[in-house]
Each structure stands twice: as C-alpha cells, then as structure tokens.
C-alpha cells in the first residue's frame, strides 16, 4: 500500500495531459509533502510493469513500457516523418545548442531550406533561444523539453554518443574556417 503522497502524485501524473515539473505536481499536493520520495517510490513501483514513470528534462510522466510497442502501434498514425535535412538539423541543434542558422549551415555544408526550422519548431522540438552577441547578433536555436520527452531523453546528457563526440572535439564551436563557402552568409542573417 503506497503512502498518501505517493497515491496523490500517482493520481495527479495520471490525470495530467502533459509532463509535469515537480513544482507543478506540488501545487496539487498538501504543503510539506515529500514529493521526491514519492516520485522515487512510484518509479520503483512501476518498474517492470506495462506502464512506467519517467523523468524527461525535469518533467515527469507515465508512459507505456517501450518493449510493448508492438502491441500498441496498430491503428496509430506514425508520428510525423522528418526528411533527411530536418533530422540532421535537429541533431545538430540538439548536440550543439544554442546554435545559429549559419552554424547549422556550416556543419551541413549547405543552405537550410526555408521550412526546415519552421517544421522543427512546429513539432515543438526546437525553439528560438535568444541571440548571440557579436556581428549580426544571429538568432540562436535550442531544443525544448518536449524534444527530450518525445525522444525519451532524461536530459541532453543522454543524447546518444554525446560524450564521445565532445571528447573528439566534434562538438566544438563551428569556426568559419570550416565552411569557407558559407562564411560570407553568416553575417547576413
């Protein structure tokens, strides 16, 4: 039998129609409830069941266990299929954020077609993240908490292979030397 707080957290997260931060959960609980303990306990309770409690980017939600996907996929629309350019752009943003459009183009070696960033923003995975100080003050892009939830990442540190890439220097800031053919474009955006 779970404690009163665990029951309450369970009910709140179950009823929620989106992932919730601990603060958001706490607003539905009596003051002083030990939310941390309840979340840990629930995570344990559900381990190995058909539903699991997960934390993604600081927000918690229940979801079905990944190994059961074959039972559930029928009659379901495949989530939007991204083209190659969009997938690469999303990966570049996720691994380099915050990153400017010119930097994305430098890494890909080609100009970004008009709709690519729009598509990623519409999907709710990418957001504008301020401007970089410097010439042209380019707009920067970063990923959203929804990106983490959607791809089942607890945080950006969970991005596949990110530590190795970092160690290999492949995530260092993009220098203009990398992309001589795009150099002149960078300042115009």
């Amino acid at each position, binding site marked *: 039998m779970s404690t009163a707080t665990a029951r309450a957290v369970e009910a*709140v997260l*179950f*009823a*929620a*129609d989106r992932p919730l931060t601990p603060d958001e959960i706490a607003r*539905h609980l009596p003051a002083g409830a030990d939310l941390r303990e309840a979340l840990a306990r629930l995570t344990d309770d559900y381990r190995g069941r058909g539903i699991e409690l997960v934390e993604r980017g600081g927000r918690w*939600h*229940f*979801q*079905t*266990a*990944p190994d059961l*996907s074959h039972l*559930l*996929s029928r009659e*379901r*629309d*495949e*989530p939007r299929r*991204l083209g*190659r*350019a969009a*997938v*690469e752009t*999303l*990966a*570049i943003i*996720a*691994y380099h954020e915050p990153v400017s459009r010119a930097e994305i183009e430098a*890494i*890909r*070696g*080609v*100009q970004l077609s008009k709709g690519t960033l729009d598509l990623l923003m519409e999907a709710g995975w990418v957001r504008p993240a301020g401007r970089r100080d410097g010439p042209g003050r380019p707009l920067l892009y970063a990923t959203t908490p929804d990106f983490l*939830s*959607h*791809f*089942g*990442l607890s945080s950006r540190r969970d*991005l*596949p*292979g990110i530590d190795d*890439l970092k160690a*290999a*220097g*492949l995530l260092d800031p993009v220098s203009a*030397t*990398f*992309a*001589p*053919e795009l150099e002149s474009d960078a300042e115009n955006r």
Partner: protein
Amino acid sequence: MADAVESPVLTISLDGWEGPLDLLLALARAQKVDLRDISILALVEQYLSFVGDAGRIDLEVAADYLVMAAWLAYLKSLLLLPRAPDQDPDPDMLAALLQQRLQRLDAMRDAGARLMARDRIGRDVFARGMPEGLRTIGRPVFRTAIFDLIDAYAQVAARTAPVQHQVRRRPVMALDQALARLRAMLPDAAEWRRLESFLPPGAQGDLRRSAVASSFLAALELARQGQAVLRQDAPFAPLMLKAS
C-alpha cells in the same frame, strides 16, 4: 547512393546530394576506411572529377559545388606544391579541418538516425490516452484600497446628507425700520431734502439698496398719512421729501 559513387559515369547528377559536403562525405565513405584515415588528396581528385563529369549542370544547384570545387583545387595545389616550412595557411591544417568537417557531418547524421530510432512517444511508447486533465480554478481574491473605502463613504455622505435649506442673513432694512427712522427725522425736515439723505449713514451695497426701497415705501406711507410731502420734478429725477 553507394552504387552511384562506385560508378559515377552511370548517374552523374548533383540533384541527389544535400550540398557539396554531403557529396564529399559519400565519396569519403566510398574509400571504405575510417574517416580519420581517408586520403584527402584522393578525395579531392574524386570530387573534382565527379563535378567535372556532371552532365547537366543547373547553375542554381551547382554554384555551391563549384565553390567547393575551387576551394578543393586550391587545397590540392597547396598539398602538392613544395612548401615553405612556415607556410600560412598550413595545407595539412586545412586538410585536417576538412576531415574534421566530414567527421562532424557524419557524426550528426549518425546522431540523427539514432535519435529517430529511439523509443518515441506516439510511435513506440504512449502517453495516457484519455487523461482527465488537471484544472485550475480561480479563487476570487478581492482587492480594494482603503482610499476607495473612504472615498466611497464620503460620496455616500455627500449624496445623501439631508438637505437643510438655511437662508443666509441678508443685509436688509425692513419697512418698519425705515418708517420709524423717517418719522423721527421728519420734524427736522422743514426744507426739501433728497430721500437718500434720510438713509442710515454708512449703508453700502445691498443694504443701501434695501434702505432706499424701504425708505421710499415709508415716505409714501407718511405722505398718505399727511405727515410728509413728496416731490419729483421729472421722471428719474431725485425724489424730494419734507415735513408737511
């Protein structure tokens, strides 16, 4: 794509590539070695020959490829020519940077594929299908300042205070007063005197006007009683009064 790379003569076109770096990466991959070990010189050769052989060249599409080709030709010349010990830019450095660029693009492409293959919500894992939802209910909190309260009270008080008609004391000389005064003064008025000379001394403004009016009425009354005689030589001329 791999087939196309191995036998470029069959399908020489730039349409299928996502830019020159994509093409370079595909050519590098065709070397079938780790990207860190590829021969940059060979890669440059392959690229230049591929772009040179490209049959139909859409200038719009080809511009980026041609810029890259020019840069690679430049790099090739730097790599081949005998070089000074401290040449700037260092050709090996440029080659290393190109190599790193290819590695980075390759890494991002791979990362993208690994991201897409993860357990994704709505495809592999599912959120609750019919969440009750959480509601936020507004609890009214009334805010009113003390000033509003005082001001409201003052307005109520002003609006509903019982109306008291208070007649202000006005400076007047009653008829009785005027009559008494004229009676007392007439015995000394054997000669014609102007009516105004009978007014109380120092009467100004409204009091004087009232005194004139009441003294005039008093004079008429005394004349009626036969105690005084009134005379006016012309309309609006001074009114003259003396004892009869």
